[in-house]
């Protein structure tokens, strides 16, 4: 698979939120404003890319030779949790501006299953390092794209005449469903 194909496949066809249904929590939780959605997207991109590189190395050099592949889930969680903490510390020290802009979303990424999903799928599909990086970047760009799309829609929904019973979350869920169906249209592209 060409690298460009990997990118397109992860952003649109196999969008982690709208086609694979991972990371639904932040997708609905922080999609009230486009601004915060963008912040979350950037933070996720950062963490996903870094964590997939590290998990790739751990899988290849520690787990595989010792036949401990069954430990991958728990080890990857460990890596992600530690990494997020580390990134938070570094960011707090080196760029307080970005740190305060991302705010609470940074620690929240620990529990974002897109991060774990990307790491696990990379290993399962036997990607090499370059493919891993492209998958990670594509996956997080896809995540950011869907987050920004739904937040823009939800910003509009706030002032629209929504039936009372559907106000707030119900209409957001319906919107998410419709978006997912729309993304089915990319099927067959890759």
């Amino acid at each position, binding site marked *: 698979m060409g690298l460009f194909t990997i990118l397109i496949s992860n952003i649109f066809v196999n969008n982690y939120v709208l086609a694979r249904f991972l990371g639904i929590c932040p997708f609905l939780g922080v999609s009230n404003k486009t601004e915060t959605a963008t912040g979350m997207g950037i933070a996720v991109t950062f963490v996903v890319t870094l964590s997939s590189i590290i998990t790739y190395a*751990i899988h290849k050099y*520690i*787990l595989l030779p*010792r036949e*401990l592949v069954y*430990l991958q889930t*728990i*080890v990857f969680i*460990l*890596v992600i949790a*530690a990494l997020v*903490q*580390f990134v938070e*510390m*570094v960011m*707090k*020290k*080196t760029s*307080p501006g970005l740190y305060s802009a991302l*705010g*609470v979303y940074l620690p929240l990424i620990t529990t974002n299953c897109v991060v774990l999903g990307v790491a696990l799928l990379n290993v399962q599909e036997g990607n090499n390092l370059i493919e891993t990086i492209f998958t990670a970047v594509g996956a997080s760009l896809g995540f950011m794209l869907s987050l920004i799309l739904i937040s823009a829609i939800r910003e509009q929904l706030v*002032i*629209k*005449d929504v039936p009372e019973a559907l106000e707030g979350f119900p209409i957001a869920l319906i919107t998410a469903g419709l978006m997912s169906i729309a993304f089915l249209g990319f099927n067959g592209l890759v």
Partner: protein
Amino acid sequence: MGIFEPVTVLGGLGLLFGAGLSIASKAFEVEVNPKVEEVRQVLPGANCGACGFPGCDGLANAIAGGKAPVNACSVGGQAVADQVADIMGVNPAESVRKVAVVLCQGDCHKAKDKYIYNGIADCRAQNILAGGSKSCSYGCLGCGTCKDVCEFDAIQIIDGIAVIDKEKCTSCEKCIGVCPKGIIELVPYEQEVIVKCKSNDKGKNVRENCSIGCIGCQICVKNCPEDAFVFEKFLAKIDYEKCTNCGICADKCPTKAIWSSLEGVQAKAE
């Protein structure tokens, strides 16, 4: 043997990451203002967000950084404000309780409409349609968007304009942020006399649109014994620090755009 290797690998990795993090936390240590922690201790810790900051930690940061007043926590009230002021070394007497006030009195009977609005009951939506249905482009639209966001039930829509109960208001500023007209402002709780009009139109236009707007006659400015009025863009504004609540301006105001809760003045106004 079977169990030994996975345990070592997992334990080893855990230990490695733990050690790495503890080293990193020393290496990347950021000095935190000790006052942040102290202020955080005396705040209620309910993380309600009424102050407008993300939780009590956020407010503690802002207070210690001088970005928020010591009495910013409306839930804790005076007791907490005093303690915080103590930590910050500020005189608590300086803190004045403020409440939000809607600066418009042009209700259904006093202000004229330019069209009949039948759309979504939301001021922001109405404001998009030629600035709302009121012929005065500064007035309260009365759809109650501020009422909807008020978490303390302090806002009521009376005769088509929003009225805030100052006893219930906690000055969380949610309504101020949501009002498309920007006519809600914080005013000291003790303030008895307020210019309840935001119109920058000329007197003639104000008269055409509303019977209780500020027409810019400057009678209040001339009669104020404390010289507490600021007059610009055809609108009188009271400097709340100079105002002594004597009520003379409200008494003299020909349109009663200056609202007063002083008893004598109110009787005359009616």
